């Protein structure tokens, strides 16, 4: 790290830190309140390997000087400071901005103003709006209220209450000096599960001097917002659990920012501190796009505006995709613009699904894997990650059927059905949930169970056991992964006409008896005529709404209702042998 002092236009001396090779593209990172450049330490370490990274202490914070008069903290002056720093550290090439909280407010002011036109190549904003946009946002909520818009308004007003408090004389200072405010901030930061157990304590002097930022700017900007447009590529990282800036306030800005990407990141307000890896990756993706035109899929997916298919630029992994519900789900996602990875034990069938998906949407990838093989599933997940990236949606669909009396179900039968139906789902969740959590941008896992998960039957002891285990697993995992923004859904199809009936093993019968039962079951499912494409549509809807449990066919829904209202009735019905044939 190289440190130096740069003198601002009004003589205030700013402490600047430089990292990395000066010949690389320059990223200037601006911290918020009440922080100093240290908030970027995690991100800087990684970014400096490929970029020339510059941080500085905003006037009044860290090692920079602190003018005493309030007017020296106006946004125009802060913009001027940024311009001076950029001029010093990258006199010839425009820089990429990365900013958090109050740093973001300043950076927005710079990218929407004229002074720095041509000097900024891209802007990644974390948890900080443009104050003029925010002013318009508040007004539009009042002018054209709807229940949703009013809810957003009330939420944001509750989040912004402290701003009013900061306008009061003396009391905010008292709150700082009594350590009340720092303690409150620590509590709020710890709401984010990714936060350290003891978050860094903000310094008292940063806290006290920075109050001038609020007092010099808030009322003026929010009270009389101007039309300010940003004409450079912008990406907004909007933490979903930010106690100060609601996602709605940060993201409803497309009318001023035509080249906009929005990424909702599970986490709290101090993303640069809690998830420096996510901030680093998102920032580099935008820088790479602007510098070299390499547009990563997540960046394309985050793009706002334009008419795009529902699942454009999503990566969707589906197991058991060679036939039935799996294949139709692959096609339904492909039709909506998603990139498909079609996995199946049968290589030819997987390839066929990928080929069909490619006819409807982007090119798809087949993969031959047996879901019951843990090591193979690990390899599969690694292959997907290195070749295509972390999936946005994983559908653990592969499953087999076993039916017949308990006493005649052999240990091998049990092992096979548990290996595929339960271990297959476990392996799929293990391999991909870890990737999604590491990526830190959420995701969706769909586990295909069955109505048998909640409808007991005397003929389905093995099958129903595996499926109810899948249901329970999914519900536990849903609770665990919620804080990482990963949704886990269970779908319970019911009688959907696929080739599962023709492949179900009916235990205790010879080959002829097997075949007869399989044909009878197939005939019954065909007469029922609920096609797998309808099931696939429900799976898409489940992903979009992050539903916890989706029964698909009407009988699966009715069964679910009955299982809750009259479980005794279902237990009685379970005694009937409903196997056709």
């Amino acid at each position, binding site marked *: 790290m190289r440190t130096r002092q740069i003198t601002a236009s009004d003589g205030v001396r700013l402490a600047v830190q430089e990292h990395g090779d000066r010949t690389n593209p320059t990223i200037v990172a601006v911290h918020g309140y009440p922080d100093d450049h240290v908030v970027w330490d995690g991100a800087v370490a990684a970014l400096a390997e490929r970029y020339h990274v510059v941080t500085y202490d905003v006037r009044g914070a860290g090692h920079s000087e602190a003018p005493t008069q309030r007017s020296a903290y106006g946004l125009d002056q802060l913009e001027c400071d940024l311009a001076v720093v950029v001029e010093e550290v990258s006199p010839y090439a425009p820089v990429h901005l990365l900013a958090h909280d109050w740093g973001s407010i300043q950076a927005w002011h710079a990218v929407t103003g004229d002074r720095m036109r041509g000097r900024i190549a891209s802007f990644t904003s974390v948890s900080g709006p443009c104050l003029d946009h925010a002013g318009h946002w508040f007004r539009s909520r009042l002018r054209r209220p709807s229940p949703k818009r009013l809810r957003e308004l009330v939420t944001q007003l509750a989040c912004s209450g402290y701003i009013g408090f900061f306008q009061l004389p003396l009391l905010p200072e008292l709150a700082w000096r009594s350590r009340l405010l720092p303690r409150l901030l620590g509590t709020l930061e710890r709401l984010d599960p990714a936060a350290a157990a003891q978050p860094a304590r903000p310094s008292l002097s940063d806290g006290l001097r920075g109050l001038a930022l609020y007092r010099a700017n808030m009322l003026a900007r929010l009270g009389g917002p101007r039309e300010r447009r940003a004409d450079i590529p912008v990406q907004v990282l909007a933490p979903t659990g930010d106690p100060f800036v609601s996602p709605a306030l940060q993201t409803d800005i497309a009318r001023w920012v035509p080249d906009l990407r929005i990424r909702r990141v599970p986490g709290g307000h101090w993303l640069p501190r809690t998830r420096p890896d996510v901030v680093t990756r998102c920032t580099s993706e935008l820088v790479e796009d602007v510098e070299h035109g390499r547009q990563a899929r997540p960046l394309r997916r985050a793009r706002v505006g334009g008419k795009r298919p529902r699942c454009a630029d999503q990566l969707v992994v589906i197991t058991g995709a060679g036939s039935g519900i799996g*294949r139709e789900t692959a*096609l339904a996602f492909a039709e909506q613009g998603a990139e498909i990875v079609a996995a199946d034990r049968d290589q030819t069938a997987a390839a*066929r*699904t990928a080929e*069909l998906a490619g006819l*409807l949407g982007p090119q798809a990838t087949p993969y031959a894997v047996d879901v019951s093989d843990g090591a193979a599933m690990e390899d599969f997940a690694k292959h997907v990650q290195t070749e295509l990236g972390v999936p946005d949606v994983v559908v653990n669909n592969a499953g087999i059927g076993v039916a017949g009396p308990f006493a005649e179900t052999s240990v091998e039968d049990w092992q096979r059905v548990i290996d595929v139906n339960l271990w297959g789902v476990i392996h799929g969740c293990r391999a991909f949930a870890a990737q999604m959590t590491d990526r830190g941008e959420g995701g969706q896992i769909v586990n295909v169970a069955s109505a048998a998960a909640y409808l007991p039957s005397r003929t389905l002891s093995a099958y129903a056991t595996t499926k109810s285990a899948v249901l329970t697993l999914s519900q536990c995992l849903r609770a665990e992964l919620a804080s990482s923004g990963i949704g886990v859904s269970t779908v319970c199809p019911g009688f959907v006409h696929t*080739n599962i009936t023709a492949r179900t093993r009916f235990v205790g019968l010879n080959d002829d008896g097997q075949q007869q039962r399989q044909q009878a079951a197939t005939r019954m499912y065909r007469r029922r005529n609920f096609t797998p494409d309808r099931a696939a549509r429900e799976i898409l809807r489940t992903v979009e709404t992050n539903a916890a449990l989706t029964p698909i066919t009407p009988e699966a829904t009715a069964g679910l209702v009955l299982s809750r209202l009259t479980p005794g009735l279902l237990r009685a019905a379970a005694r009937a042998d409903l196997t056709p044939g």
Partner: protein
Amino acid sequence: MSHSAVVDAAELARFRELQQLAYEAAQSVGEGLEPGVTERQAARRIREYLVARGVQDWFHTPFAWFGDRTAFRRFKVPLQFFPTNRRLAEGMPFILDCAPVRDGYVADIGYAGCLGENRVFERLMDDLGAYRQLIVEQVRAGNTLRDIYGAVDALISEQGYDNRHQVYPGRVIAHQVGKVHSRLPTFMVGGFGIRSLQTLFGDLLVERMHHRSPLWADGEISNHPATPGMWAVEPHIGFRGVGVKFEEILVVTTDGDAYWLDDDLPHVRRWSGKVATA
């Protein structure tokens, strides 16, 4: 349409000649279809083309289906088979289906095409070739019609498509054809010529007594090997909003052999060309 008499070589030539003419009509009308033309106009063009070349009667009136109607999407009642005012647009698939009768000889053909580029259509057409091969092989092997229907279904499901011939009345993939002998006037009822219907119903009765059917579907009545005679076979497969089919005559001989009446047809030339260049 009695199939009871085994057709001799001269008669087969006449059937082949009419089938050629019907495909020529469909291909010529199909290649001339322009954006904005309606199904009704297309059907009328086929009719005029064939009437001008000596066709006097119809087994059924010419059909034309455009866009997702080629896959019979949302078809609930038979009336929906009739040509509508749906207009053809760039990239849209179409199917022309006609069954002319001339001097008692019958042809029943289906021709699938597309206005401009459509990747799904091209893929489906390439894959349709396998059915022509599969059906004739299975008939030669003496399999029952019902089993062959099942084998076709299995291939459809393996290819990831759906069975669209099940939408035809009776779920038929084929029906028998033969010479029309009738003194009735040439008159259409419900889209079918009454002379042909008379023959068909006659066949239905006779065949029913032998526990067979001139209609080839997947029910119990089709649980027998192909009856000798001529079958108009029309596998129809669909994927999303696109359906394709061919329909042509399969000859089944008394000794159980089977062959397609003619290999010089547009779809067959497409497949043999692809194989030759592959």
